[in-house]
């Protein structure tokens, strides 16, 4: 119950903020942070729980974004439908890619995910209906009541998505599914001999992960009123989705949240004060430092400190 109370509180705060706060900048920033929470949480379902590294977040994210954009262009579909379609397409991609490569070792899956980004980006680059390499302009419809600002509406929507993503991750983690996933991560052979259908579970995790990433990307086209391949399939999404859980902690559903909030903040600060390249450098260094010295992430560190101070 504690989780749902906190989640409800967070969402209520988001709605209240949308009602009271005037400065739209906070909602732009907030939207981005919440989006990374969704991506990081999604990543961790396959990366943290099962132990398969995905470098291809931009592929799932971008496919979701383009699905939403193309659907909107073709049918002027409402946001809710766009999100569902995006989740379905990216989920399908996760399913297919998983089926193809999850029977192999982790590093092969990781490289295959890089391949996915390049291939999907290349396909989109050559698809004129979606705007090709130059991109697609989209005209935003007016925000649905009671929202007056489109960005504020997207912000609240993203908050709902973030809560949903974390809830899904939490459910998987605490259930028998999560136990099966952890068994696969700890010893795949022993898991298989304990009755765990390893390939099916891995593909399931990959599908859910992909679907959530797609949902996270679905509102991007409306957010920018524009979509084009280079920025949509940007490496930053891969970095953010991977580094956030690895720094925040991969063992539980809170780690990616902490990591995403931390990294987004660092990103904003460093990019604005120094440069966007330096931002990538900082993230890279943090990633290496944490992976080597604090493998259980910030959550793990907090756990250690509370344990030693309670003695």
């Amino acid at each position: 119950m504690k989780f749902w109370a906190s989640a409800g509180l967070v969402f209520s705060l988001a709605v209240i903020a949308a009602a009271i706060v005037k400065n739209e900048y906070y909602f732009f920033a907030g939207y981005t942070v919440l989006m990374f929470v969704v991506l990081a949480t999604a990543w961790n379902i396959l990366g943290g729980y099962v132990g398969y590294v995905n470098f291809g977040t931009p592929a799932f994210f971008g496919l979701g974004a383009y699905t939403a954009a193309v659907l909107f262009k073709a049918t002027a579909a409402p946001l809710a439908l766009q999100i569902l379609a995006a989740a379905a397409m990216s989920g399908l991609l996760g399913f297919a890619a998983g089926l193809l490569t999850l029977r192999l070792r982790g590093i092969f899956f990781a490289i295959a995910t890089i391949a996915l980004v390049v291939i999907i980006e290349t396909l989109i680059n050559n698809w004129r209906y979606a705007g090709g390499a130059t991109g697609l302009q989209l005209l935003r419809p007016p925000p649905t009541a009671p929202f007056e600002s489109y960005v504020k509406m997207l912000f609240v929507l993203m908050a709902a998505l973030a809560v949903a993503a974390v809830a899904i991750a939490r459910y998987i983690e605490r259930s028998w599914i999560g136990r099966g996933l952890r068994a696969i991560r700890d010893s795949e052979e022993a898991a298989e001999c304990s009755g765990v259908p390893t390939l099916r579970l891995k593909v399931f995790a990959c599908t859910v992960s992909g679907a959530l990433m797609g949902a996270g990307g679905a509102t991007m086209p409306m957010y920018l009123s524009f979509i084009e391949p280079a920025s949509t399939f940007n490496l930053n999404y891969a970095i953010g989705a991977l580094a956030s859980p690895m720094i925040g902690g991969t063992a539980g559903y809170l780690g990616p949240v902490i990591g995403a909030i931390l990294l987004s903040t660092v990103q904003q600060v460093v990019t604005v004060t120094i440069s966007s390249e330096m931002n990538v450098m900082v993230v890279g260094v943090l990633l290496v430092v944490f992976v080597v010295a604090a493998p259980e992430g910030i959550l793990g560190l907090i756990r250690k400190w509370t344990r030693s101070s309670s003695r």
Partner: protein
Amino acid sequence: MVFSFDLLLEAVVFGILLGCFYAAVSIGLSVSFGLLDVPHIAHPAIMVFGSYCTFVLGRYGFDPIVAGVVLMPAFFVLGMGVYRFYYEAFERRGSDAGVRGIAFFFGLALIIEVGLILAFGVDQRSVEAAYIGKSLSIGEMRVPLRFLVAFGVALVLMTALTLYLSKTFTGRAIKAVAQDEAALRLMGANPVRIKQWAFGIATAVAALAGALLIIVGPVEPGLDRVYIGRTFSVVVLAGLGSMTGTLAAGLILGISESIVLMHFGASWAPAVSFGLLLIVLGIRPQGLFGR
């Protein structure tokens, strides 16, 4: 799409030159990933770093190939250091090392790439040499001389490495440690030391490959990304641990890319290596000559 035999022949010839170059560029990865099982995603980044070092030496008047050779000892030491660090931090600790090991090399590649951007900017850099800029006429085709030079150096490099691995004592020890580490330990050899040495060699080879890279065309810091696709598809197609397979796989990739480039244009070219990789992983993950 115009289909002409001459065009196809030109694509194939060019593809052979390109393919041999790809093989040379990937052979370091064949050792570090194929033989040693290290998830070395940062290999292309180190190679690009080598290209930039070649560029710097070029400013001091070094011929790029000479620069590449000169860099090899330094990169050898660098490689040994990287492996040692990787071993102490990850391989020793077992279980979770897979995810963290991969993330480590990803972070390393990022750091190298951004470091290059900060040091050199995002613009393309190239070197100058007597053989860069000229073309040779073979029959009716014009082949850029620098590709022939790269082709030659690549062949020498691969022959040297293959001979080293099969004829010398340490070379065979490296192959042995890839097959049966326990047996090697029983024979009194230290597998960690051998792997470290092998990783050093792989990195030294990457330095020379980086020199070839900047000879063949201009480089920019993000170049490592497309080469991740090329090197890994070559190594996987060859079959992990197969040196001779690397040449065959490189040629297959080179020719495929060349044909796609000539007939479908440059916007499709990057997808070739990654597409090939996915096909291999889907149909025959052990590659052509895999163990």
